[in-house]
């Protein structure tokens, strides 16, 4: 995503002189002709591996959200993640990728359905620095879109209608995410004209997702029982801290595809350095969050330890390719401090069950701003985006650019998301009924429990046979907990 004239680009340029453009576009022909550079294969392997790590983050989101949900809402998360992931894939292939990475200041205009784009190195110019094949780049960028979409739903657990996921996912993966991310790291105006720095997406992925999450939460409202008659928030504990922890560690692992993979390039040897920066920040984030939670509440909060890791990883996402390693613990540590304070503050007002607004929103903002403070002169030059940060130049220029980018992206995504959710609310509604919420989304939306043994009397499960079952009397289609009198 960074523009620069590296050895890879030079190689690609030389190859395009030696070959007709169409032949270069087809790696199979180039390989057959014996002119496919090794770097294409090496870079493609790295980009695909990184994409797979990011795709694995879907499992991380699933377990994190399942752990933070009550047992009656555990199964629905699985259905949601799988459905959203699939919708995002098709929408991003058909429309989103062209908007996001085609050339253009406001949005890309070619490459729909990943067809008719000519030479991919030219057509998706911002990614031309890497000669990895366009399919590997698509897989990688799609996995980012899917992560951003998964972040949106963190605030909506335990009360949202399933259909809302489906409708918003189509709009988000086709229009909202592609256009906003195009501005930030797809070669759009914020990046190319203003020089906003966002290496892997503190703003372009995490803040966009959190902004969508904020827009839906404002219209969705809190879970029943979250706020007492006195207006004070009540804890609604999730049912499994072990599953939450598994989710956090999967996300942490996936981030080593997220940030280092954003080099799109293995040949310049930059990616291990990005991985190092990512690790240091996350470590500092956990310790920062644990320390603050211990200080504020007197206990080492399990959830805060995990959220501290996520918040720090979000924060280091933008600067990971721009800063020296020594700044990473600072950036991550400050994110770790932001996490518990942000969660306590937000929880008093609106019901965000997983802390997504803090971890992805506030920490996304901090991470993006931190580029304006800590970006090193050498790496700003290497990436050819923006200038060095405040501590090197003494100038607030880059910091201001970062802030402008944040405000712009937030306003754009919030407006479109709020309108989309308002339209859904006006037509089919956002929330399930109070009865369905009380019964849990597993049984009311999916007709089955995530943990059947916990809800169904064991004697009926063991040895259950339809032959001996009491015949169901006019059972309505789809499972329901609505009370129906015996006739």
């Amino acid at each position, binding site marked *: 995503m960074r523009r620069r004239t590296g050895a890879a680009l030079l190689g690609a340029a030389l190859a395009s002189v030696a070959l007709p453009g169409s032949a270069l576009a087809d790696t199979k022909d180039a390989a057959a002709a014996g002119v496919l550079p090794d770097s294409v294969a090496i870079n493609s392997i790295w980009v695909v591996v990184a994409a797979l790590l990011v795709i694995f983050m879907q499992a991380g989101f699933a377990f994190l959200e399942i752990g933070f949900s009550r047992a009656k809402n555990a199964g629905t998360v699985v259905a949601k993640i799988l459905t959203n992931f699939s919708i995002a894939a098709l929408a991003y292939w058909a429309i989103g990728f062209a908007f996001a990475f085609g050339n253009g200041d406001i949005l890309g205009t070619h490459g729909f359905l990943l067809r008719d784009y000519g030479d991919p190195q030219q057509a998706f110019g911002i990614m031309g620095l890497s000669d990895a094949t366009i399919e590997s780049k698509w897989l990688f960028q799609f996995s980012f879109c899917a992560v951003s979409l998964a972040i949106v739903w963190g605030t909506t657990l335990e009360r949202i209608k399933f259909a809302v996921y489906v409708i918003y996912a189509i709009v988000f993966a086709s229009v909202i995410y592609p256009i906003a991310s195009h501005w930030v790291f797809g070669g759009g105006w914020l990046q190319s004209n203003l020089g906003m720095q966002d290496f892997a997406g503190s703003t372009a992925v995490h803040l966009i997702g959190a902004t969508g999450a904020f827009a839906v939460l404002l219209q969705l409202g809190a879970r029943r029982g979250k706020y007492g008659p006195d207006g004070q928030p009540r804890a609604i504990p999730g049912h499994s801290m072990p599953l939450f922890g598994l989710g956090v560690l999967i996300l942490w692992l996936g981030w080593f595809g997220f940030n280092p993979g954003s080099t799109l390039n293995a040949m310049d040897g930059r990616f291990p350095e990005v991985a190092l920066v990512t690790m240091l920040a996350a470590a500092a984030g956990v310790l920062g969050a644990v320390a603050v939670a211990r200080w504020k509440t007197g206990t080492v909060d399990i959830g805060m330890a995990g959220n501290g890791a996520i918040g720090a990883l979000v924060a280091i996402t933008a600067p990971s390719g721009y800063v020296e390693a020594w700044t990473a613990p600072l950036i991550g540590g400050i994110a770790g401090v932001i996490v518990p304070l942000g969660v306590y503050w937000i929880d008093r007002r609106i019901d965000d069950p997983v802390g997504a607004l803090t971890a992805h929103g506030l920490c996304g903002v901090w991470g993006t701003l931190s580029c304006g403070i800590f970006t090193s002169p050498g790496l700003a030059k290497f990436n050819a985006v923006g200038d060095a940060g405040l501590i090197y130049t003494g100038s607030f220029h880059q910091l201001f650019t970062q802030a402008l980018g944040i405000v712009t992206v937030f306003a754009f995504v919030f407006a479109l998301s709020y309108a989309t959710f308002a339209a859904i609310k006006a037509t089919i509604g956002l929330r399930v009924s109070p009865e369905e919420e009380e019964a849990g989304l597993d049984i009311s939306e999916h007709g089955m429990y995530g943990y059947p043994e916990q809800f169904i009397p064991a004697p009926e499960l063991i040895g259950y046979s339809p032959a001996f079952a009491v015949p*169901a009397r006019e059972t309505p289609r789809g499972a329901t907990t609505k009370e129906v009198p015996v006739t």
Partner: protein
Amino acid sequence: MKKIEAYIRHESFEPIRMELLSLGFPSLSISEVKGSGRQKGITERYRGAELTNWLRPKVKLECVVATQDVQTVVDAILKHARTGQIGDGKVFVMPVEEAYRIRTGESGEETLQAHPEVAAQATA
């Protein structure tokens, strides 16, 4: 002395507890139970197959109070547990022969008396 045993919906328990607390009856026990009555079961669908569960989860609330307090407690339960739908549950009242407070060894109705100071705290 009477024992009140109520089978109620889960969601009605918290309002009942709050009301009893404000009336000065903090002492009660609950258990998770499963039972059947006129309320139908839940039909679950598991990968295309149906599974009907005739036993529904309920909360059993138990408390022992002085005879003169029975109506107060029962009224509180009826007030919050009633939705008007089948499945609201039932309340049983039964005699209790003796009661002892283990900590002090006291016996009789003194061990069950309402706790006005608790009510004062709850409403303060």
